[in-house]
């Protein structure tokens, strides 16, 4: 009986304020899509970090006879210097940080160079002595690279110690900026959504003020008076958040999986599994937001 009455009140309210309800749906739809996109971007960043940082190594480039920078002075690194560097890598200070290291001589480096830059014009002029001998160091924790860089940069025979993670940083910076922008836009839109819901509920209450007055007079409980209005906001926001969830799933399915994944690249992308983690967040977020703002908006009409 009461449930039926409450639901019919909700239906009446939604019908009476169609245009406002549509605008709530659109604003929550857009704002929650941005929220979802921001979450996906963060997931993407984490996934890429996990993937690349596992593979990123610290390269200890040794001097060649053509190098003037570092500690080189155009002298090829001597076998004693190499032994010293290897000694350092095995030392009690660095060994605990290192998962493994490999030594790459001129020929192996040249072969890799040929493979990677086969199409480049310069590959014809380069000879193996141009390619520095290198210690490739894999770290247990990639963020600890500074210790290696500091320790080995000044050692004789070392041209440069380079953390490959530095190549990735600009990409992560760009993705982070995109995700913060999305969060910022989402925040502004969510404020608009909250205010819109509150205004709509007030309008709805105003158009039903006679009923509300009589309800209070005859002793309808606050919860009974409040529920239809809260539900009204929740229904509108729910539709918006379901649309936003659909948009997020569609973006991942058609754009990320269908388009980005089709282009050849080694980068792993977010998949539908990640999108389905976002969906309940968006729906719960939309419902809570609407319920809260509607409950606050209607409070004035409940004062006894």
């Amino acid at each position, binding site marked *: 009986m*009461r449930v039926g009455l409450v639901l019919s009140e909700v239906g009446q309210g939604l019908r009476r304020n169609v245009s406002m309800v549509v605008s709530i749906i659109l604003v929550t739809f857009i704002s929650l899509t941005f929220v979802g996109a921001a979450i996906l971007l963060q997931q993407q960043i984490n996934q890429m970090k996990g993937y690349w940082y596992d593979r990123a190594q610290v390269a200890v480039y040794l001097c060649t006879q053509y190098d003037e920078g570092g500690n080189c002075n155009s002298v090829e690194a001597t076998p004693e210097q190499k032994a010293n560097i290897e000694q350092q890598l095995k030392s009690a200070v660095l060994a605990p940080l290192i998962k493994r290291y490999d030594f790459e001589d001129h020929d192996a480096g040249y072969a890799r160079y040929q493979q990677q830059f086969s199409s480049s014009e310069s590959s014809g002029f380069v000879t193996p002595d141009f390619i520095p001998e290198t210690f490739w160091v894999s770290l247990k924790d990639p963020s600890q690279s500074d210790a290696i860089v500091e320790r080995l940069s000044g050692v004789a025979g070392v041209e440069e110690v380079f953390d490959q993670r530095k190549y990735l940083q600009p990409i992560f910076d760009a993705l982070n900026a995109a995700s913060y922008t999305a969060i910022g836009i989402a925040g502004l839109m969510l404020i608009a959504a909250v205010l819109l819901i509150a205004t709509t509920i007030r309008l709805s209450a105003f158009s039903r003020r*006679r009923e509300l007055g009589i309800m209070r007079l*005859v*002793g*309808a409980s*606050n919860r009974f008076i409040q529920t239809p209005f809260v539900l009204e906001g929740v229904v509108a926001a729910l539709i918006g958040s379901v649309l936003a969830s659909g948009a997020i799933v569609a973006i991942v399915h058609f754009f990320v999986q269908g388009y980005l994944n089709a282009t050849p690249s080694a980068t792993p992308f977010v998949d539908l599994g990640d999108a389905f983690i976002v969906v309940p967040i968006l729906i719960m977020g939309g419902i809570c937001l609407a319920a809260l703002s509607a409950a606050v908006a209607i409070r004035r009409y409940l004062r006894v």
Partner: protein
Amino acid sequence: MIRFDQVTKLYAGNNRPALNSVTLEILRGEFVFLVGASGSGKSSFLRLVLKEENPSKGQIHVLGQNLGKLTSRKVPYFRRNLGVVFQDFRLLPQKSVFDNVAFSLQVIGKSKGFIQEAVPDVLKMVGLAGKSGRLPHELSGGEQQRVAIARAIVNKPAILLADEPTGNLDPSTSAGIMTLLERISGGGTTVLMATHDAGIVDQMKRRVIELVSGQIVRDERQGGYQTQALPVQRQAPPPTETGLGAQR
């Protein structure tokens, strides 16, 4: 039933109290007229009984409850024991007579079966048995007020508050409404009626409480609109203060 102890009501921005140290008691089953000029505090009195307002000073007990200690969560349940009727009827224009009365039961969670039984009963009692399908604008003023009364008493309240219920009605229709209120009172309901209608008060010969500028100047058993006996004077205000500025 209703007890006021030294109740003063001040509204913000107005130095003159709407009610000034009012003390009175109304017993179960009494029929009481509250008379006085506009702004003398009649409506404030009724609003205080309903706990739509809180007194600035003093204590109010209604139906054994100290209203000052009633939490706002419990106010709706308290009001289910009171019925209220207004001068302007306050019916819902899109709802039929039946639905207007049923609405007040629906919103306090009464069952469909109870509503189907109680509403026709009460409509019969107020003399609208054949008109339950009508909309309010299809009824005369007197009939609309009967619907409002039916709505107020359908839940069998212990107290019926009526704020100038005959204010919009002609004398013969008013007489019909008064007969109805008398019948309700006869059923054991305490009726408290604020009114300007001298004819009705004089004819009914019931308890009359007269307010002037927020103070009780007369509380008379079987009184008239204007007193025939020596009034119970309690610091009556100077008679020079009249006009809108002095009211409330």
